[in-house]
């Protein structure tokens, strides 16, 4: 069990060995898949092949290890995920198909997450306990309470995972999550994640937040560990996540983890979605593996090419798919169907 002070990670070199080339290459492949997906989505949003884009390029070094460590499945005996709009790499690491994100981007009828209704990267995957991603900042920290309660009651090692951004922690929902997760009468097994990229749209974190680290919120609760890590380093994120998952699965109590990540294409298409000169976690991983002789540039190139080709095919496929029929708006209003006398004319 970790001390409340951020534990120093063991020398990186060992950890590379410890994780091993096969695992690292698998992680790399998923990071590339997620990155290429986001870059494709950006291209679509600029090319009139969809509208608004928002996503998580730059967070792959944290999100892929997270997705790989999730206890994946349906129901209270598996982990629940309350994600936000930068979580593509998490669901990709959990096995989601890039083509479905393209479908949501183009808002075609085959979009399995929202039937062409919602923005891209707004996932809803019941088979894997990924609850509907909400466009409202921070509300996922309130809904996490509910799956956390269900899992605190059940005999299981499954936990609830919630993530969001730094600026969003100013919302009361972050507070609600902290308070409820630490109720003496029923502590909750929640991994409370904050990805700190230093900005909320155009507003700098440091101008608005007096806390030195967001993980300092853990200081209020004697029982809750809090930790801040470099989210751009696969080695550090893997170890920190392992520690946090293990602690929560065993102790059935919350853990607050802050990961500092890059925001590689800015906030969203509203801010231009152009590449920003910030640390690139994939470059970093490739460099570190090559210098350690764990892989060759050629291996990486192959991954990039294969993934790109797969994406091209998927995109081609999606372009051939129909848009939703107008009457489909009346599906899913109620779980048991639309009552015959429900008003549907939009007036007189």
């Amino acid at each position, binding site marked *: 069990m970790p001390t409340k002070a951020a534990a120093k990670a063991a020398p990186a070199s060992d950890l590379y060995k410890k994780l091993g080339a096969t695992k690292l290459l698998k992680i790399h492949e998923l990071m590339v898949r997620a990155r290429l997906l986001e870059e494709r989505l950006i291209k679509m949003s600029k090319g009139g092949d969809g509208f608004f884009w928002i996503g998580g390029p730059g967070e792959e070094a944290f999100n892929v290890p997270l997705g790989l460590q999730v206890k994946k499945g349906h129901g209270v005996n598996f982990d*629940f995920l309350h994600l936000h709009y930068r979580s593509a790499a998490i669901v990709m690491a959990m096995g989601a198909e890039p083509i479905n994100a393209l479908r949501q981007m183009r808002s075609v009828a085959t979009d399995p997450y929202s039937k062409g*209704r919602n923005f891209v990267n707004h996932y809803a995957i019941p088979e894997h306990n990924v609850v*509907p991603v909400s466009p409202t900042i921070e*509300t996922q920290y309130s809904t996490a*309470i509910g*799956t956390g309660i269900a899992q605190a009651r059940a005999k299981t090692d499954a936990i609830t995972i919630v993530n969001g951004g730094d600026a969003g922690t100013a919302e009361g929902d972050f507070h609600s999550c902290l308070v409820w997760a630490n109720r003496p009468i029923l502590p909750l097994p929640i991994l409370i994640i904050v990805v700190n990229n230093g900005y909320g749209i155009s507003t700098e974190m440091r101008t608005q937040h007096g806390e030195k680290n967001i993980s300092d919120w853990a200081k209020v609760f004697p029982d809750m560990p809090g930790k801040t890590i470099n989210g751009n380093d696969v080695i550090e994120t893997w170890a920190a996540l392992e520690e946090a998952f293990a602690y929560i699965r065993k102790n059935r109590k919350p853990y607050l983890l802050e990961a500092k990540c890059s925001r590689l294409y800015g906030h969203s298409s509203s801010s231009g979605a152009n590449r920003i000169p910030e640390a690139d976690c994939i470059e970093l991983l490739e460099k570190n593996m090559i210098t350690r002789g764990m892989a060759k540039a050629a291996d990486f190139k192959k991954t990039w090419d294969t993934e790109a080709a797969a994406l091209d095919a998927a995109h081609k496929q999606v372009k051939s798919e129909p848009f939703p029929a107008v009457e489909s708006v009346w599906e899913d*209003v109620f779980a048991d169907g639309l009552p015959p006398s429900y008003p549907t004319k939009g007036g007189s």
Partner: protein
Amino acid sequence: MANMAQAIRMALHYGEQNLGVTEIFGEDVGPPLGGVFTATQGLEKTWNAPLDERGIIGAALGLAWAGGRPVAEIQFVDYIFNVIDMLKLAANGHWSSGGRYKTPMVVMTPTGSGIHGSMYHSHSFDSIASKLHGMKVVCPSTPIDAYGLMIAAIKSDDPVLFLKPKALLRSKGEELIPGEPDEKTLHEMIDAPLGDRTKWKAKWPKLSDYTVEIGKAKISQAGTDATIVTHGRMAPICLDVARRFQKEGKGSLEVIDLRSLIPYDWEAIKASVKKTGRIVFINEETEITNFAEHLIRRLVDECFYELKVRPRLLAGKATPGIGLSPNLEYFIQPQTKDVERVVSELLADPA
């Protein structure tokens, strides 16, 4: 005769025993209090939440997604306005997820005026509730309907907002709830004792699966001359006036108790208007953008030529709040005399 609070309690008991309700929670919902209106006394699955409406609705939503059938309470509807966004998420989640997530949760909350509640224990919420599309909204006016609607709400795979008229929670009905013993026995069985309750356990009568279908109104009195459409606190008042008018030969009034606001029983309203040609909508919410104005608009669209006289509305006055002094509350909120006045005008209006 059970009162409405007891009826809700019995329905929740039936729900936790037979319908998979595993969490009943909210501020002061659990022991020792069992709810500020005693509606959750003696139940097994109740617990007290932190003073945080956002956490409460968030918890309910998460529990529903996790496969539960939670019943959450907002202590007074007057305190629901800091969490409308989460109610919207509950309401639109099924649609936004392309039908992949259901949200079987009940949010119950006391509504309306009539207890000298002043500005923040008198709010009505019908209109905003009716705009949380995807959410079902019910509001009983009798214990038996409260029982049957709560059972229906628990069974529903949609989120249901269950509005409990504050002023009626202690009032009794005319119909018995199936399995309900006599009043005294019921009281001894399920009402928590005053003083120390640590050792007390409720004894429950044998209850049954009595459901009032969400979306079905009740014709609480059949009539031929004019129609009153109402619900909640105003329903018993309207029924009382209608009965007196009947007795005194002043006119035959049909009283429709909506019971469900969303979906609402449009067929019942239309059928009655076709019969009477005269209609008034009566509720206690303020008159600007009042839910009944939607019903009037739709009536004008679909039955303009069946209307013998203009359809009417009796509602609350659009003040920023409801004043504590009875002078003020009785002026702002519709009372019996106002119902008598508007109904008399409706009957007298030359066709």
